[in-house]
């Protein structure tokens, strides 16, 4: 800078002009971002703050008086058996659904990718559960899994197995719901993986072939799996979120039963907030629910993001 000869003038004024220009540019930036920021605040930030605020009160729908109760709602949660069971069940459900739906989705995508004929047909078939209304399909599953008239148990009887009461037994209900969840999620994950697969440069497979990676197994570990990293991270994230949010099947098929064996977080929140109308308490649960999701996402990206993006 010092080698540039400024025209005879006041350098202080020049820097002042620069500051004005910077300020007006900053102002323009805020004005351009304004609409998006306003909507963000209105639609996401305010409701979240509202929920956090309500969770610190004893507000119940239909009662006029509302008191600030501090962290009482949260302390109550710690001793609420229903909530703790619900937390555990949601965890179990997620642990079953996420890996199964991710692996089956990847498998389906790999098989469809190698098949030239009928690719569109298979893609559509696998995607059907995603677009079908789960509430409507839940009744079909209820019929399929019925202990006496259901086709599943009828098939099991044919090979001499006495099938359990899938949705009625407290040992099997969560697994049955998880399988329905997997059935619904596989198609979606498959479509995401298919998109990821088409983005892999063909030359890498050619190079792998030249480098003697001759078996499908070798090519998968040398090219496909590492190149799908970003896709896999995204699919796992979406799968976890969807699994933690399980609600439709529970609400239509089991209502949390039998004996709270299928009580899950969203169902418990719904019961507290909309059936017992304890909005303050339900809000505290919602805050916990959001916190769990946030922590999961942060952990996942901290741990994996660096390792799946190579550029």
């Amino acid at each position, binding site marked *: 800078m010092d080698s540039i000869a400024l025209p005879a003038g006041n350098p202080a004024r020049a820097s002042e002009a620069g500051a004005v220009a910077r300020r007006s540019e900053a102002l323009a930036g805020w004005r351009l971002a304004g609409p998006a920021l306003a909507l963000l605040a209105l639609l996401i930030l305010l409701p979240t703050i509202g929920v956090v605020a309500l969770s610190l009160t004893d507000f119940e729908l239909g009662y006029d008086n509302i008191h600030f109760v501090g962290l009482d709602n949260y302390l109550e949660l710690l001793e609420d058996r229903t909530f703790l069971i619900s937390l555990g069940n949601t965890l179990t459900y997620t642990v079953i659904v996420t890996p199964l739906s991710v692996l089956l989705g990847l498998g389906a995508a790999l098989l469809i990718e190698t098949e030239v004929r009928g690719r569109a047909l298979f893609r559509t078939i696998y995607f059907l559960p995603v677009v079908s209304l789960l509430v409507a399909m839940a009744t079909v599953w209820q019929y399929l899994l019925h202990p006496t008239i259901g086709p599943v148990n009828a098939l099991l009887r044919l090979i001499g197995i006495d099938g359990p009461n899938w949705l009625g037994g407290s040992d099997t209900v969560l697994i049955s719901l998880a399988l329905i969840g997997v059935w619904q999620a596989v198609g979606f994950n498959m479509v995401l993986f298919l998109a990821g697969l088409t983005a892999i440069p063909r030359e890498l497979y050619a190079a792998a072939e030249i480098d003697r990676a001759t*078996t499908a197994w070798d090519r998968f570990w040398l090219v496909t799996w590492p190149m799908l990293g970003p896709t896999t991270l995204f699919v796992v994230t979406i799968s976890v979120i969807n699994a933690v949010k399980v609600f439709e099947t529970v609400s239509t098929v089991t209502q949390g039963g039998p004996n709270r064996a299928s009580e899950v977080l969203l169902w418990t929140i719904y019961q507290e907030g909309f059936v017992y109308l304890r909005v303050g308490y339900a809000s505290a649960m919602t805050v916990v629910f959001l916190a769990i999701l946030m922590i999961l996402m942060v952990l996942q990206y901290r741990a994996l993001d660096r390792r799946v993006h*190579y550029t």
Partner: protein
Amino acid sequence: MSGLALRGISKAYGDNHILRDVTIEAKPGEFVALVGPSGCGKTTLLRIAAGLDHPDRGGVWLGERDMTAMRPSERDIAMVFQSYALYPHLTAGQNIAVPLAMRDLTVWQRLPWIGSLLPGQRVIRADIQRRVFETARSLKIDQLLDRKPAQMSGGQRQRVALGRALVRSPAAFLMDEPLSNLDANLRVHTRSEIVELHRRAGVTTLYVTHDQAEALSMADRVAVMMGGRLLQFDTPEAIYGNPAHVEVARFIGSPQINLLAGEVDAAHGIRIGGRLFVEGVGATPGTRVTIGFRPEAIKLGGPGQAGLGASVQRIEFLGSETLVFLEFARGEASLVAKLAPAEATFFRPGQAVTIAVASGEVLVFGADGSRLSVSPAMRMAANG
């Protein structure tokens, strides 16, 4: 050491004929360049040599071995891709090690964690490490072995790709425009390095490029391809000085060869735009021909000297040489002459000049583009 032969290769996708009966035989240790404009089929031919594509007809031989039905992995060939095709999740060292690991380690030994517990793999891995390091050192990339491709420059990535091809000492090298993603300076530098590498290793090499200068400067023999056909396969000197086809003459050489369309008249002369250009051709009168001569074959003289009249349009000084653009036969044809800068100082735009071309430098091509043999008595017209 063995030669690489592509014999009678044809390939079509539907009605689109990519390759038509192409035969190229590289002698053991020879460096052969496949050159042609984009879409001429040279990359398809290379992929067929690699086994990544399969010919409709014809075969691929490595020495006495018919490889036509073999998979790429069984062919003992290495390939360098235009995009380098490095594995982005592996370091440079791991990239170079891949072909060795795939060849020398079993499926179980290659498994992560479990593989490192199996017997015997420790010795093999140490040997792989040693060879990776030797290759890296010969390419001067041994200090980069821990970097991932994203952390390297284009030139460094190109060396890693070369290393991956070199490390297992293949019987033949295939290179698909390996220099086209480098900047101009680095390209000229890497060009000589690849030639030096080839000289040291002595491995039969098939090198695809669209850059005629690259082909001429690097290869022992050059194969010029156009529209799926092999037009000429010869030494760089013969390709340049003695082209077999008008398209070869047009494609090779910069600035482009001067080409003038004309007709053989009753007196066995060739007229360009009505003016007699050469005499005593010895071809059938009425034949449509194209005559060609290189820019450096033109001798320029002042008015009154022997030769054909032309006028200077434009002069380009390029440092080591000067290009003089000429108008001939009142705008019927334009020519370019390449002169030493000192000679060119005599000329100015708009000036009337005479041109003369030594008769040995004049090439005559027939209507189908093939070279016509002309009578040794052919000479430049005395005046015009």
